[in-house]
């Protein structure tokens, strides 16, 4: 018995749910969380990203310098972004299949911020309706 914890983009909630149903897992618990990832230390990558964001330009709508301030705070890594945390209880054999499904549904071309999947051991589970415990309580 394993617990899969997956932090994914808010926008990808629907895609993740669909992928889980396709993988044969219908049950999950989801909660809105705030998260941030590892710091990007490569200054070149940050500079590139900054240029891209700056060129999107909000200057017509906001005070001068506001965009730069916002973009900088966006990239310095200290900011938290809204994410969806899925908790899924699965049999040991299904772990690789489900991880593949979640990864496939959530990967984007941005190359960063797509989330993380954690797999943890669970010692027991009980279905409240019937009282059955262990592996039988999962599906």
């Amino acid at each position, binding site marked *: 018995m394993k617990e899969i914890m997956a932090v994914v983009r808010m926008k990808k909630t629907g895609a993740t749910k669909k992928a889980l149903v396709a993988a044969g897992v219908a049950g999950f618990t989801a909660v809105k*969380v705030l998260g941030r990832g*590892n710091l990007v230390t490569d200054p070149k990558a940050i500079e590139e990203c900054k240029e891209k964001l700056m060129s999107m330009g909000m200057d017509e709508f906001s005070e001068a310098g506001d965009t730069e301030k916002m973009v900088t705070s966006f990239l310095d890594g200290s900011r938290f972004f809204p994410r969806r945390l899925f908790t899924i209880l699965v049999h040991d054999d299904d772990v690789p299949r489900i991880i593949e499904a979640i990864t496939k549904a959530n990967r984007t071309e941005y190359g960063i911020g797509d989330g993380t999947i954690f797999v943890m051991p669970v010692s027991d589970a009980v279905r409240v309706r019937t009282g059955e415990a262990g592996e039988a309580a999962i599906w």
Partner: protein
Amino acid sequence: MADVCDMLLIRAIVRPEKKDDVLAGLSSAGFNAATMVDVVGRGKQKGIKIGGMVYDEIPKTLILMVITEDAKDKVIGLILSIAKTGKEGTFGDGKIFVSPVDEVYTISKGTAGL
């Protein structure tokens, strides 16, 4: 899949007003990645009694972090020292739970590992 558990999930329940300090402290020590969620809960003091009212759903912030085993002492020490209020600590400062993590996958890279 490694049999040896070398990654740990840290679940820290802290005061909401302390979360920014805790996260800033962790970030400057090199542990930037974290997930947080607002929760309510009570401890073994059974909540707070003010007058005749008992408040047993006290708002706290739950911080989730996955770290490698060798960073455990550092991270826990940091959270303990920052999240404590007053010199001796106070009831309601929170708790830290540590549990093993078998596998970690980063979706954007598509590979295993933190």
